[in-house]
């Protein structure tokens, strides 16, 4: 700048401007430090603001996907337990049927005993098929009721799927179709157990043999359903893990976009503080000087 007159008001103005500027920077840094955020309004960095909004939206989504997956996992877990129990009971029923078939000459009393145990097994299997999760039968489709099968073993559920969204645009079925696992009405495992019980009571060896064959088919169906549930459970657990991993990386990204770099900001604060103190010191020294100090 060319040589110019330096006047009192010029000194006052430039000192004030310098101190104001330093203070404004200090205040901005202080706001960043106290709020912990470097993005406080969109204009701080419009691009980062958009990123932050996207990241926040994705974080909400992934959190929800993880919750959905955990809920679905619980559904599938219940179904798995129920099917395992049904499978065990069915094995026992097969044993009983074989006993009945081998005791062709046995007394009707012992066959009746076998028949009543088969009845018990049927009741137990209906209980397993009515397993609920949070009040909803896991084999009942979308029924509003609490049972998938009535006491006689007839299907009372509403066909339909219960889905969980586990990733953007990806849903996974978490219920199990009762009629696929336990057989369609009229040809279900419960009908077969009723028929077996009747055959045992009647000492009808042909009926018992037919029952053994039918139970074999039922067991295959239940095993297949169990495998299916297991596969889906694996998938949903993997989806949950993926969602949680994504969540972590999204949160890391959000922090780096939105939050201050603490050491760097503290260094900045130190530097700005020093600059402010320097401007205060310089102002107090220069403004005190006057020709009056040297005139008598």
């Amino acid at each position: 700048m060319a040589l110019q007159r330096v006047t009192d008001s010029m000194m006052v103005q430039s000192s004030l401007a310098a101190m104001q500027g330093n203070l404004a920077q200090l205040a901005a840094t202080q706001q960043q430090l106290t709020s912990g955020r470097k993005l406080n309004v969109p204009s701080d960095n419009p691009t980062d603001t958009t990123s932050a909004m996207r990241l926040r939206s994705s974080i909400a989504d992934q959190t929800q996907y993880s919750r959905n997956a955990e809920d679905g996992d619980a559904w599938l877990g219940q179904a798995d337990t129920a099917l395992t129990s049904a499978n065990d009971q069915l094995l026992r029923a097969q044993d009983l049927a074989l006993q009945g078939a081998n005791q062709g000459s046995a007394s009707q009393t012992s066959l009746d005993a076998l028949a009543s145990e088969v009845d018990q097994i049927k009741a137990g299997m209906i209980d397993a098929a009515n397993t609920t999760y949070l009040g909803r039968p896991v084999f009942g489709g979308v029924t509003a009721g609490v049972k998938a099968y009535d006491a006689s073993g007839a299907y009372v559920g509403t066909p339909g799927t219960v889905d969980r969204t586990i990733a953007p645009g990806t849903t996974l079925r978490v219920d199990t179709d009762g009629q696929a696992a336990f057989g369609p009405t009229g040809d279900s495992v419960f009908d077969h157990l009723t028929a077996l019980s009747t055959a045992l009571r009647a000492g009808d060896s042909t009926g018992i043999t037919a029952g053994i064959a039918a139970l074999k088919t039922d067991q295959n169906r239940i095993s297949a359903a169990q495998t299916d549930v297991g596969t889906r459970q694996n998938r949903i657990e993997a989806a949950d893990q993926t969602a949680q991993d994504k969540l972590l990386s999204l949160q890391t990204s959000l922090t780096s976009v939105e939050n201050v770099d603490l050491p760097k900001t503290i260094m900045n604060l130190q530097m700005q503080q020093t600059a402010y103190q320097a401007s205060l010191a310089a102002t107090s020294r220069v403004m005190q000087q006057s020709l009056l100090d040297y005139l008598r």
Partner: protein
Amino acid sequence: MTSTFSTLSTALSALQYNSAALAVAGGNIANVSTAGYARRTINAESVAQSGMPAMWSRSVSNGDGVKVGSVQRMVDPLLDAQARRQHASQAYLDVQQSSLQRVETGFNEPGASGVAAAIADFRTSWHDLANNPGSDAARSEVLGKAATLASAIGTQAANITTESGDQRTRILNDVSEVNSVATELASTNKAINAASLNGSDTGTLLDTRDQLALRLSELTGATATTRADGEFDVTLNGVSLVDGASAGTLQIASGITSTGASDGNVISYAITDSSRTTAVPAGMTGEIGGVTDLLTTTLPAYSSGLDAVAQQLADEINTQHEAGYDANGNAGTAFFSYDPTDPAATLAVAITSTSALAASGIPGGGLDAANATAMAGSTTVEASYQQLINGFGTHVDAVNRATTSQQTLTTQVDTSRTALSGVSTDEELTSMLTSQRSYQAASRVMTTVDSMLDTLINHTGLVA
């Protein structure tokens, strides 16, 4: 031959001049912190012989002392014009910046309480309902989150409306200030004219004139031209506002009613003088120009962007909701309601009963949740909203940057002005000392002449 007594009168002129110089220094020191005061300098002029030398009329005088040549006001009209221009641009940006920053802070973006967060929460609540379609709690949550979302959008719309209202009131105040400043400038012009005719000092009047013209420029971006006698004529985008001693009246021709409400038209201005009313072309700067641009462009653009977001949200959600079936097996109805003329401010949840939420994808009750799942993914409004916020943020960022660089220019021209016109106490003290010493020396000249005359009159012919 010089007269014996002429030296006395030379000394007297020095005494008079130095008193005047001391008075000027005193005046400068007194006004060291007066806003708009331009320092005065006194110019000395030596008094030469009178008349033209001629063959029979010649002077042998070596000068007859000193007199006050002029008292000059140290200003540069070019710098003053620059200052007016820069201050107008500064005011134009400052007023926009402070308003936009207020609006922007009201967004709460990015954050946990803005519209974006409300959209995410709304979507999450549909997922929860999909997980648990039979639960009244999940259904209430959806309604609650929807109400939060509608009110978040409504709050933003209300913020813009409030800000627009405040800015319209500001224009009303600014216009009345323009008129009172213009009237004052006209009467100052009249005084300057009178003072320069009778030869009085116009310095203080010119200080006032410059201050008033600067304020007019800050308010409207007006430009001033100087007349020969120092009067200022002020024009606003080519339309005369102050013409010598007469001032026109700035009026709001359309856009704002006298109570500060909007009349729905574009804001425009006109100036009425004694004979006619002339429309002011658009494109003023200064505070009024800044606020006008804010009210004409920036705020309405954001407002209509927000309206589009609200409408898109409501339409998308309604379409999907109407595709589902509620808890009683009836087809879903519109989820959000709004007034198409003002969607953002009137957005509201139309569903009142939890059982009316269409979570099911199949008619006839049941706990199917296919539509709830679809609802969760049915809106793409987030992207539109992000774009809106990004656009506004970028605009505010640009205004912030422009304000900062304008500040540099304004400071520079202000510094140049104070460098020229500001009072330096050290300088004034020095000129005080000079005056004092000169006064003392002139007094000594008088004493010497006196003692010479004393010798001549009282001691001539006497021998000690």
